[in-house]
């Protein structure tokens, strides 16, 4: 009976059952990174894709954060950039801007998630240049502003290490996954793929374990 009630409540919330359940202990960056590694190329059919309509980068990172344990903030309880959700209502997807838009997501993450910290900000990182990402951890978010106009255009998620170490001997997690364009374990500055690397501003946000 308990199971039946749980299923009914979950459906009533409009969250597809095929989505991974939230971890009760809050955010696990490792789980988020694992999700990204699973779906960087094979898009998860449980979610809609925006790859052919504006880009799927933020939608993909949001899915990974959700899989890692960040809870949705649905309307009307949350509004504007405090709302963060992607739900199916009457067989149609309903979503907030921060779930799908990099700039709006940056506002949500920095202003509405407790404990989020900017761990690195760089400008004009050259391809082939090794740059510190501020001890980023798996599951952290990387935001890109291609022309440094103050609006983020793209985002990715930290997923792995290239094997190098930080100055203190800890593992240097410096590789990211992304959608639109699909990337798997790419060096975090993406300068290798970026014709505008000279004008690109990059910000790394650390999401502490346990954040919900």
């Amino acid at each position, binding site marked *: 009976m308990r199971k039946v009630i749980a299923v009914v409540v979950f459906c009533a919330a409009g969250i597809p059952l095929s989505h991974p359940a939230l971890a009760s202990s809050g955010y696990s960056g490792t789980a988020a990174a694992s999700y990204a590694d699973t779906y960087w190329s094979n898009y998860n059919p449980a979610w809609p894709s925006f790859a052919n309509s504006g880009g799927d980068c933020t939608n993909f990172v949001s899915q990974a954060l959700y899989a890692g344990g960040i809870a949705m903030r649905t309307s009307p309880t949350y509004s504007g950039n405090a709302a963060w959700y992607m739900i199916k209502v009457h067989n149609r997807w309903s979503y907030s801007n921060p779930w799908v838009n990099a700039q709006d997501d940056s506002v949500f993450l920095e202003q509405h998630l407790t404990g989020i910290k900017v761990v690195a900000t760089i400008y004009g990182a050259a391809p082939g240049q090794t740059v510190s990402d501020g001890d980023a951890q798996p599951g952290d978010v990387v935001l890109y502003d291609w022309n440094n106009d103050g609006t983020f255009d793209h985002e990715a998620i930290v997923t792995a290490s290239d094997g190098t170490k930080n100055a203190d001997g800890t593992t240097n997690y410096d590789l990211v996954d992304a959608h639109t364009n699909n990337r798997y374990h790419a060096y975090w500055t993406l300068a290798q793929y970026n*014709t505008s690397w000279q004008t690109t501003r990059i910000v790394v946000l650390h999401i502490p374990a346990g954040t919900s």
Partner: protein
Amino acid sequence: MRAVLPAFFLLLTALLPANAHAAGSRHLTPAALAVRVGRIFGDSRARIIHLERTTAEASNQRMYVIGLRGSFRQGARHARYLYFSALAGRWHVWGVVAYDARHHVVWNDPILPARSRF
């Protein structure tokens, strides 16, 4: 004559990709880029050992990430491997990183100037 025509056609097909840019198309093939970039660093016959076809961030243009194996030089420095990014639609090569046989970086050119195209 019947036997000659298909052979001629096959020969043309084989030659076209590497020289498509010379035939009016703006498309640069990996083979053509390997020759041009390799030539700049002293080895126009370098072998392609890595090829990634993708789309460039920001500009959304078709691009390649190419790895070459050969005998490269820049001044007095020598390298065995060369990796670089290049647009497919026009001459724009960036992120050239040269490695020695032990995969240590020997030199790094963030961007190749346009005048280095030949």
